[in-house]
């Protein structure tokens, strides 16, 4: 299926809703007295977009949602600019959920309440729109445009707390770093264009499969492109912006960046490296197109990413910064599924991203709750959290952190389990061992937080921490699946497995 512009609109429900929403919110910002309403509006927009996205996946004849969320109407839209397939829809839903949670968190955030909210939500929603296109781009131009769209809006969001020096610095560093990374990336894209003679993914693939190109030049192109994509997923050595930005940005934005931006980056990465730079040799098994051994390159990146991320996280005392390093490490874990060149690996990655969504957002939510009550983000602010009113956030935090560590029966374990399974199925025992050792190391710093919350005695004088209904509900919404998916995850896994289907024409 290759639809033209007008016909494509029928399949662009989520994006259209978001785009219209952006206009309404920004416009509403000029009219509405009660700025908080704008947040509610944004929530509504994202929710309806979510409905639209889910709707795209469900054929009306079949009410079994899970089985329904499968291949239906694959194809190119807008003259092969973007693609609609299982893979893109999976990410769209995930990204919309991330935006949804981020907006929800923003609604209760003291930091955000002090800013101009109309623009805030408008930019946030538009950022989400960019992410949706990242997940669907099937053209180098769309890939670059959407990535840059997300980046630009993220710079704004990261620097949104103008009077907070850290926030401004975060924006500046993010901007510079992102500019260099994306500049490098498009330089690589230009080389790729020169090699393949086209910007279209499928045509590039065909050209590369045809074999009339220099592997060395292609390798150069791939490395340059990797700089941009690696920066988006915060993989070492393109990770350096992450700690500063995560620490400086408003907490909901940090959460959104760490989950949404990263997931979108992975979507871009996977679609670029799998359907474009590889070909399927057998059912569920891939082979990189001759000459460019990117899996080995990524293997190195993967191992270095998780190791450095974890080790650097060990010494952190600021929760946001620690979670930033941890999110770097998690990018490394996810990359484990990336290098094995199998569908199992890919579906494990998708599943892990779902798990990561739940637990990482949850962790940031607790950070938000604590920061709201005490204004603190450092580890000492969590001292004896469980014993000064914050039992619920403390327990939830413990669950999220242990899930991040990968301890059953929490969803993080299942995610890691699938990643390790994919790795071991390909007999990459060294990689598995590195991953495992990293899991153990990661326990150390996660447990430090847990220790502070539960094991330390209150010194007296700490503020009480209470969680209101607003955040409480979201906390519940995140905790419940974190546990439940650790016990019964088959539907989600099936969804992830089925989402590893790329439309290639």
């Amino acid at each position, binding site marked *: 299926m290759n639809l033209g*512009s007008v016909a494509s609109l029928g399949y662009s429900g989520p994006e259209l809703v978001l785009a219209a929403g952006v206009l309404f919110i920004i416009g509403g910002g000029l009219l509405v007295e009660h700025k908080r309403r704008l947040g509610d509006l944004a929530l509504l927009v994202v929710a309806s977009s979510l409905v639209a996205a889910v709707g795209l996946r469900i054929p009306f004849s079949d009410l079994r949602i899970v089985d329904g969320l499968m291949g239906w109407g694959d194809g190119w839209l807008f003259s092969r600019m973007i693609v609609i397939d299982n893979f893109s829809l999976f990410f769209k839903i995930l990204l919309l959920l991330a935006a949804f949670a981020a907006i929800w968190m923003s609604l209760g955030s003291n930091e955000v309440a002090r800013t101009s909210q109309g623009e805030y939500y408008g930019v946030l929603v538009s950022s989400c729109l960019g992410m949706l296109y990242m997940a669907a781009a099937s053209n180098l131009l769309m890939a670059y445009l959407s990535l840059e769209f997300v980046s630009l809006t993220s710079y704004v969001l990261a620097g949104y707390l103008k*009077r907070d020096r850290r926030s401004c610095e975060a924006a500046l560093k993010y901007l510079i770093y992102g500019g260099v990374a994306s500049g490098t990336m498009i330089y690589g894209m230009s080389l790729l264009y*020169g090699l393949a003679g086209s910007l279209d993914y499928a045509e590039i693939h065909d050209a590369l499969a045809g074999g009339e190109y220099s592997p060395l030049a292609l390798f150069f192109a791939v490395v340059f492109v990797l700089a941009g994509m690696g920066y988006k997923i915060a993989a070492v050595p393109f990770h350096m912006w992450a700690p500063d930005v995560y620490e400086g940005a408003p907490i909901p934005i940090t959460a959104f960046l760490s989950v949404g931006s990263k997931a979108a980056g992975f979507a871009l990465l996977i679609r670029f490296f799998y359907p474009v730079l590889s070909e399927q040799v057998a059912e569920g098994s891939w082979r990189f197109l001759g000459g460019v051994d990117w899996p080995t390159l990524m293997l190195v990146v993967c191992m270095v990413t998780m190791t450095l991320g974890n080790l650097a996280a060990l010494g952190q005392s600021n929760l946001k910064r620690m979670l930033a390093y941890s999110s770097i490490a998690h990018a490394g874990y996810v990359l484990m599924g990336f290098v094995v060149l199998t569908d199992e690996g890919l579906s494990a990655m998708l599943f892990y991203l779902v798990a990561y969504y739940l637990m990482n957002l949850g962790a940031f939510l607790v950070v938000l709750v604590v920061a709201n009550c005490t204004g603190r983000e450092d580890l000492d602010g969590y001292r004896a959290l469980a014993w000064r009113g914050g039992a619920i956030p403390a327990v939830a935090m413990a669950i999220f952190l242990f899930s991040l560590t990968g301890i059953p029966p929490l969803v993080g374990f299942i995610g890691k389990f699938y990643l390790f399974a994919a790795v071991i199925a390909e007999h990459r025992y060294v990689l598995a061992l590195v991953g495992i050792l990293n899991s153990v190391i990661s326990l150390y710093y996660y447990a430090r937080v847990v220790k502070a919350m539960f094991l330390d005695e209150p010194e007296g004088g700490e503020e009480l921490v209470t969680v209101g209904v607003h955040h409480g509900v979201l906390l519940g919404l995140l905790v419940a699946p974190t546990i439940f998916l650790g016990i019964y995850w088959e539907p989600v896994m099936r969804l992830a497995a089925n989402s590893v289907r790329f439309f290639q024409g």
Partner: protein
Amino acid sequence: MQAGALVFYPVAALAIAGAALVALSTNIVHSAFALLGMLVGVCGLYLLLGADFVAAVQLLIYVGGVVVLALFAVMLTHRVGDPVVSNRSVGRLPALSICGAGAACCLVVFWRVGWQGERLAEPVATTAAIGDSFLKEYVLPFELASVVLLAVLVGAVVVSRKELK
């Protein structure tokens, strides 16, 4: 055709010299003006390559927009009349070696490999074709770009304006 070479080398030299000055100058204002030279040089190269519309856009947006923005930034953030605005460099040696190595690699590879369809197409007037494309196959990026600009401008305004309180 010698004429092509005659035009190419000065223009390329202008671009490279401009770029070098951007990179090496210790005065930010000088850098900004050097960027202007580089942009013009590149613009010339575009013309050599038959990309007239792109060249025009380059001049309009870059020269008219970006450089002016940069100068604005310099002026707004420094006291006007400050003759020497610092643009210090640090760590030149390692940076030079890394970038030199990167450039060398690129050059070696570019000159060694053959590129897809290395043959010169007939130059055509591009403006109409580009306009056509914008409204046909590239309509989505085109529209999306407008959303990008909207969001970015709104964001930029919010970030840069003074706090109201």
